[in-house]
C-alpha cells in the first residue's frame, strides 16, 4: 500500500517535473499572477469571442473587491492559497513516458482498485501531445491514422480511448445530445452558453466561484434536447487525456424539457492531482419535466499525516429546477483532498420539482471537510431529500452544513434530512450545522441525525467469523454508507466500496 509519505514524495517529484518543463515550452504558460492580462491571455489562447472575454473580465473586476469567506469550520488552520503565485494557464504537464517511470507503489494502489493497465496509463497521462491531438481529430470526425511518432505504450492507451470515444460520439450525435468541452461549446454553441452560463451560479456568487468565472480553464458541456433520454451515462472519464487543465473547471449541463441525463464526474480511479487549489463551478439546468443525475467520486491527494500538502477542493455546484416537475439529484463520494468545501445545491423553482443530495464524506489523516447542501424551495409541492454520511478517522474533521429554505411561495413543500456520522478512533471529529428557514406555514421539514462510534462488538462479531479486522472495518463502513451507494450507478458503487477500503487502510488498531 502506498503510504501517505510515498504519495507525498511522488507529488513532490512531479512538482519538480513541472518546473523542469517550463523552459521548454515557455509560451504555453501564462506568467503567474492574477490580473487583466492573465484573463485576456487565457481567453485569447482559447480563441474565445469578445462576449466571453468581457464576462471573464467583469468577474475579475468583481473578484478584486471580494474577501475570502471565513465562516467555514476548519479546526486546523490552513495556509490560504497564494492566488498571485498560480499560473492560470498551463500547457499539459510532463507525464511519465512509460510505466517504468512510475512509482511501483502507485501502480499497486491502482491494481488494488481493480484498474486495468490501459486505464492506469490513461490516468497517469502516459501519452504525449501527438496522440492527444489524434483523439481530438478523431472526435471532430476528421479521422486520423495511428500517431506514428509516439511510443507504443502511449498508443495502446490512446487507442482504447479513441475507439470508445468515437463510438459513443456517434451514438450521442444521433440522439442530438451535445457533449463536448466547454471551450468547444463557447465556439460552436454560443447561443446555449450565453443563455445558461452563470444563470445558476452568477459570476459574483461567491469568492471562489467568482475567481473561477474569471479564469476557468476548461470543463464539460452537455445539452440534452427536448424529450430526449441521453442514451448512455456521460462521464468525464473518456476525456481524461485532455485533462491536466482541471484546476478551474467549469461544467454546464442542460436538460431541456422532458430530457433525462446521468453524468459521472471525475475519477473512475484515484486522480492524483498536484494542483493545490481546485475551484470548480458546476451548473445544472433542468427544464420542465427534465431529470439530471450527477454523481461524483473524488479522491484527490489528501496530504500527509500531518496535513502537509493535499488539494483544496473549493467547489460551487448548483442546479436549478427551472420548470414544473423537474428533478435534480446529486450523489457524491468524497474521500480525497486536504480540505473539501462544497455544497451541491438545488433551487426548486418549478412546482412539484424535486431535489436530492446523497453524500458520503470521509476524512482521515488530517483531512477536513465542511460539506453539505442547500435546498431552496420556491415552487409549490416541491420536495427535497438529504442523506449525508460522514466518516471521520485518524485526525480528520468532518462537518455537515446544510440549509433547507422554504420560501413564502413554497406551499406544501417538504424536506427530509438524515445526517449520520461515524467516528473511528478517538482523535477525529464530527460536526453538524443544519440551518432550516421556513417561511410558509404549510411547508414541513424533518431532520434526523446520529453520531456513532464503530462499535467494538461489531468488529469482534465480524472477526470471530474469520473476517480480518481491516475487511471488517470496510464492511461496516460500507454498510453505513449503503443508502448513498445505492444511488450510484452500479460500477461506481463497486468502486466507491473499494475506495473506502483503501482510504481506511491502517485506520484500525
Amino acid at each position, binding site marked *: 500500500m502506498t503510504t501517505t509519505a510515498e504519495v507525498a514524495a511522488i507529488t513532490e517529484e512531479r512538482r519538480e517535473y513541472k518546473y523542469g518543463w517550463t523552459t521548454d515550452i515557455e509560451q504555453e504558460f501564462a506568467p503567474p499572477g492574477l490580473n487583466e492580462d492573465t484573463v485576456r491571455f487565457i481567453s485569447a489562447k482559447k480563441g474565445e469571442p469578445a462576449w466571453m472575454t468581457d464576462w471573464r473580465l467583469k468577474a475579475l473586476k468583481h473578484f478584486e473587491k471580494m474577501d475570502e469567506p471565513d465562516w467555514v469550520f476548519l479546526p486546523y488552520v490552513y495556509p490560504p492559497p497564494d492566488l498571485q503565485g498560480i499560473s492560470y494557464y498551463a500547457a499539459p504537464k510532463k507525464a511519465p513516458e512509460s510505466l517504468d517511470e512510475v512509482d511501483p507503489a502507485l501502480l499497486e494502489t491502482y491494481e488494488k482498485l481493480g484498474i486495468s493497465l490501459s486505464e492506469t496509463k490513461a490516468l497517469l497521462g502516459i501519452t504525449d501531445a501527438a496522440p492527444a491531438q489524434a483523439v481530438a481529430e478523431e472526435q471532430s470526425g476528421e479521422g486520423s491514422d495511428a500517431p506514428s511518432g509516439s511510443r507504443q505504450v502511449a498508443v495502446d492507451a490512446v487507442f482504447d480511448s479513441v475507439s470508445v470515444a468515437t463510438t459513443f460520439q456517434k451514438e450521442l450525435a444521433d440522439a442530438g445530445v451535445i457533449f463536448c468541452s466547454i471551450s468547444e461549446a463557447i465556439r460552436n454553441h454560443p447561443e446555449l452558453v450565453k443563455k445558461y452560463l452563470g444563470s445558476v451560479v452568477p459570476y459574483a456568487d461567491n469568492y471562489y466561484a467568482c475567481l473561477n468565472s474569471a479564469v476557468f480553464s476548461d470543463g464539460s458541456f452537455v445539452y440534452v434536447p427536448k424529450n430526449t433520454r441521453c442514451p448512455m451515462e456521460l462521464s468525464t472519464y473518456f476525456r481524461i487525456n485532455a485533462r491536466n487543465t482541471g484546476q478551474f473547471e467549469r461544467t454546464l449541463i442542460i436538460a431541456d424539457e422532458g430530457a433525462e441525463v446521468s453524468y459521472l464526474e471525475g475519477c473512475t480511479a484515484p486522480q492524483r492531482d498536484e494542483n493545490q487549489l481546485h475551484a470548480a463551478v458546476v451548473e445544472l439546468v433542468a427544464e420542465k419535466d427534465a431529470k439530471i443525475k450527477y454523481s461524483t467520486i473524488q479522491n484527490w491527494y489528501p496530504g500527509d499525516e500531518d496535513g502537509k500538502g493535499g488539494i483544496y477542493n473549493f467547489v460551487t455546484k448548483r442546479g436549478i429546477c427551472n420548470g414544473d416537475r423537474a428533478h435534480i439529484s446529486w450523489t457524491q463520494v468524497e474521500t480525497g483532498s486536504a480540505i473539501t468545501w462544497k455544497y451541491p445545491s438545488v433551487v426548486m423553482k418549478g412546482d412539484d420539482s424535486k431535489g436530492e443530495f446523497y453524500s458520503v464524506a470521509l476524512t482521515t489523516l488530517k483531512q477536513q471537510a465542511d460539506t453539505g447542501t442547500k435546498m431552496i424551495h420556491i415552487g409549490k409541492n416541491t420536495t427535497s431529500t438529504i442523506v449525508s454520511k460522514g466518516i471521520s478517522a485518524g485526525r480528520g474533521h468532518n462537518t455537515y452544513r446544510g440549509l433547507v429554505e422554504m420560501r413564502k411561495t413554497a406551499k406544501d413543500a417538504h424536506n427530509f434530512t438524515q445526517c449520520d456520522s461515524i467516528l473511528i478512533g478517538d482523535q477525529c471529529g464530527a460536526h453538524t450545522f443544519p440551518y432550516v428557514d421556513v417561511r410558509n406555514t404549510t411547508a414541513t421539514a424533518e431532520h434526523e441525525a446520529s453520531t456513532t462510534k464503530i*462499535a467494538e*462488538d*461489531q468488529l*469482534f*462479531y*465480524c*472477526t*470471530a*467469523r*474469520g*473476517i*480480518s*479486522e481491516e*475487511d471488517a472495518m470496510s*464492511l*461496516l463502513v*460500507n*454498510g*453505513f*454508507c*449503503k*443508502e448513498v451507494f445505492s444511488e450510484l450507478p452500479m460500477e461506481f458503487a463497486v468502486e466507491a466500496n473499494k475506495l473506502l477500503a483503501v482510504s481506511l487502510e491502517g485506520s484500525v488498531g
Partner: protein
Amino acid sequence: MTTPLLDIKNLHVRLEDDPAVEILHGVDLRIMPGEVHSIMGPNGSGKSTLAQVLAGKEDYEITEGTIAFQGEDITELGPDERANAGLFLAFQYPVEIPGVSAMQFLKAAVNAKRVAEGKDELDAAQLLKHFREKATQINVPYEMLKRNVNEGFSGGEKKRFEIFQMAVLGSVLGILDETDSGLDIDALRIVSEGVNSMRSADHGFLLITHYNRLLEYIVPDHVHILVKGKIVKSGGKEVAHELEQTGYAPFGVHEPVGA
C-alpha cells in the same frame, strides 16, 4: 492417538483494563472430536468469559495456561485466525450490522476462510448453492439471507442464524454461548435440531448454559460445573440432572437451575 479438538490447560484469565480482577482461576478442559461437552454454572461464574477468551476477544488477558486447538497453541492468534482454523462462537447476543446483508457478510466470511486454507474463493453461483444447501439443513428460511445481519431478527431468528453460520463455515468446533437464553420451546427445538444435524465423528461442541433445558434437546457426553472461575465437578449427563435437583447450593451458590 487422536489429537484433541480443544485442549485447555490451567487457564488463568483476568480483565485487561482491570488486572486486579481475575475471572478464570485455572480451567482445564479437553474435548475430543465427536464429543459434546456442556459447561454449566451460575451467573458470574466465568462461563461467558471462557467462551469469549476461546474466540479471541481482546478485552481479556491470559496470565497462565494454554489453549490448544487441534494440537496447535492458539493463545496468540487473533479471532479471525481462530475462526478460519475451524473454531466457531455462537454469540449469546448476536450483533446487528446495519446496511450489510447476511449474504454479503457470509460471502466475506466463507472466502476469508478459503483464502486462509489456500483455496480459491467461491464465486457467486457456488456460494448461493452452498447457502441453499445449508439453509435446508439448518431449517433457516433462505429469505433471511437477504436481510441485514441480525437487524430486526427475532430472538429465535438470531440464534438460528448463528447455527446456520457455523454450518456454512464448516467449523469443527462450535462453542454455543447461552444459545438457549430467551428462546421459547419451538425455537429451542429448531436450533437444537440444527446443532444435532451437524454432530459427527469430526465435530465437537461446547454448550455453555445456565439451565439444563437445552441439554434435553442436545444431549451432552460430558458435563462440567463451573463456579467462581474453576471447574468444580465433571461427569456424564447425569451431572446436569443432579444439578436440577440440588441447584448450585452444594457449590455455595444459591440460584435455581430449572428452566
